[in-house]
């Protein structure tokens, strides 16, 4: 079994290297033989998917067969590990996750190579770029992090087991989502670099990659929120985002990817910001590689980093190669990226995209700086200085508020320039709505002057209302126009409106999801927590809830032993739920983990953790958190996913091309 896996990895490397080299040769040489060479390169790329898939299948099979002769299986599995986690062994350790990266990349490459007829020459260039990235990962797998390395000495009877933190249902889906997002950015990167290398005329490459970019962005978004949900449900500290380096690593490409999704519209619509967009997608790809490097190298310590190794040098070298390649081709073909138009006014749709991009990049730089600060400080001063959440929040919360403002303002501005009359016409209703909501919140007891976090919460909710009203007004106004033409009711007209321009109205649905998420974030300003020792019948009161300890119970299964509390929850004197916070002891890895018990409602989450027993008194310790509006975050994500899916659906009714009446062709020779 390990022999077939090792052979598959070597064969995949040979095929990918061939795909890369033959692909380059075919593009450089002209003539009939180059077409055949190019076809063999394409086929080698396709075959590499089958071979990498075989290697991954061998590793998963070895996990199910408890083949502990393979060191990776020994270190990340054990006989009593439940089946879904044995499947997740593929991405639970360093070597496996690199193989998984490679598998996903080859799958993306497969789709790209099968769809080459869209534009064979552009796809051939993009295929070479993807093959180059794949060569790097296969070199790593073959020579630095071999997943089929054999155990030395006598064969162990059982494995060390999977890290307990990873034994959670979401762990089976969250890394694939995140990796699909990370890896997926290779595709727009490959097309962008390909378009630059071949001085591709026009923006069709953006149309080709639009869906890839949206799928990738959507998957990365899902991955990030699954990480948050996993951290919330498993780590037991009561929060969902701690500005941990690995969380930040996934957030960085999301920020630049979001900026790209917005600014690329300026290139499509008006032929502007070509250099900016090119570097945005280059940066997004490099940050994806950087994220993988942070997660896998052990250069920063994190609750999400499950590997310590020396492959960091490989990643640093690879990042250097990518950067030099991008710089080289940019410098060589920079004249190809000249803008077709200039920014005409600061009050325009273009400028709102530009400001949106600048803010996203400020956030990206802040997160990058804060993430790397411990490494840089150690490098410069010899002492590792870490920066905590206050640093990130101080910059990113105001930036997020400004972004929210732009989300409200942007869709209402016209391309090119917006007059004062137009501003007045479009902003009156959303701005008034935001002011009314802010006044109502103050009237109901919110005191923004007492604490800066309250001020931020109030601003967040007011701006979120403004965005919501903007989105609603866009749907209603567009729906009315269609309703006027077709006689349909407003709701049906709004559905038709969305189907006519899915990208735009899907985008508005995403914006709506974002505001639901940020309202959830705003709730964190009012978090409460309490900790106390609780014997049978003891009470703990937090907010409007009272917890009464009913009993403590123990259980045992082959994988872990557990101990949990039975807590009755009362509200207004009436029992509304029973919570079971739990502590587990995993036998194979000899590690303990907590499983918080959560009662979610629209207004708040009651989050209860069983911390274990006080060593002095022998009494169990219970910690309770009251986290307002957390459910809004998870609901908002679903809305964002729906919006992304809508934006990817092709428009159903392409509007007829009408010749503009006043257009007169200029004298021949006016063009170049």
């Amino acid at each position, binding site marked *: 079994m390990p022999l077939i896996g090792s052979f598959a990895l070597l064969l995949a490397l040979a095929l990918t290297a061939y795909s890369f080299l033959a692909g380059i040769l075919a593009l450089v040489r002209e003539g009939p033989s180059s077409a055949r060479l190019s076809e063999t390169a394409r086929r080698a790329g396709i075959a590499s998917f*089958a071979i990498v898939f075989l290697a991954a299948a061998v590793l998963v099979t070895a996990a199910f067969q408890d083949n502990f002769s393979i060191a990776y299986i020994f270190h990340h599995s054990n006989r009593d590990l439940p089946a879904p986690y044995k499947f997740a062994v593929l991405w639970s350790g360093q070597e496996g996750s690199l193989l998984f990266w490679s598998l996903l990349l080859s799958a993306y490459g497969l789709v790209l190579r099968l769809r080459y007829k869209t534009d064979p020459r552009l796809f051939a260039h993009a295929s070479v770029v993807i093959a180059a990235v794949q060569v790097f990962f296969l070199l790593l797998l073959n020579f630095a992090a071999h997943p089929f390395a054999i155990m030395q000495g006598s064969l162990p009877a059982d494995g060390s087991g999977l890290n307990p933190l990873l034994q959670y249902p979401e762990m089976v889906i969250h890394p694939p989502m995140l990796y699909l997002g990370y890896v997926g950015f290779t595709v727009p990167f490959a097309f962008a670099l390909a378009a630059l290398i071949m001085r591709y005329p026009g923006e069709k490459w953006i149309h080709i990659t639009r869906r890839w970019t949206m799928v990738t962005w959507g998957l990365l978004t899902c991955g990030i929120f699954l990480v948050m949900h996993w951290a919330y449900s498993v780590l037991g500290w009561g929060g969902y985002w701690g500005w941990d380096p690995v969380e930040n690593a996934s957030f960085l490409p999301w920020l630049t990817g979001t900026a790209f999704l917005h600014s690329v519209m300026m290139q499509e619509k008006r032929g502007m910001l070509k250099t900016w967009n090119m570097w945005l997608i280059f940066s997004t790809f490099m940050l994806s590689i950087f994220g993988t490097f942070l997660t896998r190298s052990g250069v920063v310590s994190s609750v999400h980093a499950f590997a310590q190794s020396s492959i960091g040098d490989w990643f640093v070298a690879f990042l250097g190669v990518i950067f030099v390649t991008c710089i080289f081709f940019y410098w060589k073909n920079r004249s190809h990226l000249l803008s077709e138009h200039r920014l005409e006014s600061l009050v325009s749709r273009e400028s709102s995209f530009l400001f949106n991009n600048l803010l996203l990049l400020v956030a990206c730089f802040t997160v990058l700086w804060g993430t790397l600060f411990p490494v840089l400080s150690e490098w410069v001063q010899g002492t590792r200085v870490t920066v905590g959440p206050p640093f990130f929040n101080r910059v990113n919360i105001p930036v997020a508020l400004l972004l929210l403002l732009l989300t409200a303002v942007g869709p209402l501005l016209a391309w090119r320039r917006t007059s004062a009359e137009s501003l007045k*016409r479009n902003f009156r209703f959303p701005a008034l709505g935001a002011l009314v909501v802010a006044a109502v919140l103050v009237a109901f007891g919110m005191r923004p002057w007492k604490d800066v976090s309250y001020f931020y919460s109030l601003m967040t909710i007011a701006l979120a209302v403004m965005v919501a009203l903007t989105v609603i007004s866009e749907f209603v106004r567009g729906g009315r126009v269609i309703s006027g033409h077709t006689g349909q009711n407003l709701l049906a007209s709004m559905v038709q409106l969305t189907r006519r321009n899915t990208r735009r109205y899907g985008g508005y649905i995403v914006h709506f999801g974002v505001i639901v998420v940020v309202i959830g974030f705003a709730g964190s300003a009012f978090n409460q927590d309490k900790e106390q020792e609780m014997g049978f019948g003891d009470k703990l009161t937090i907010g409007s809830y009272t917890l009464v300890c009913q009993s403590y119970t123990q259980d045992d299964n082959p994988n872990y032993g557990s101990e949990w509390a039975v807590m009755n929850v009362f509200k207004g004197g009436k029992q509304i739920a029973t919570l079971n916070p739990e502590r587990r002891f995993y036998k194979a890895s000899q590690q303990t983990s907590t499983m918080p018990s959560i009662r979610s409602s629209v207004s708040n989450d009651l989050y209860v953790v069983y911390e274990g027993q006080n060593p002095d008194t022998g009494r169990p310790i219970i910690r309770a958190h009251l986290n307002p509006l957390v459910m809004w975050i998870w609901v908002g994500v679903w809305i964002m996913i729906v919006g992304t899916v809508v934006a990817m659906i092709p428009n159903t009714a392409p509007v007829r091309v009408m010749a503009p009446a006043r*257009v007169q062709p200029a004298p021949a020779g006016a*063009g170049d």
Partner: protein
Amino acid sequence: MTVALMACMFIATATLVYVFYLPGTLYLGPRKTRLSFLRERRETVYENLRDLSFEFKAGKFPDADYQAMKTSLEEEAAAVLSEIAHLEEVARNSAAGNKKGARV
């Protein structure tokens, strides 16, 4: 071990056959030219005009703004159309020249 080796040999052979055995003709596709780019650009400008018209009907802009933006887009469309017309004429002349040369 022997079975594993045989499996590896089979996989390698099948892969080599798939990669290097190329029966039939290959699809090369058309080359992207300045003219095809301009035709795409024309569609984009028309789409921008349609969007503008729709937003005006939705009541987002006053009439003066709409007329100014429409004029600007129409000028952009005119420039693109003139270049398309010029390149098509050059292409026609070149094709006619080739035909004449072939007859001579």
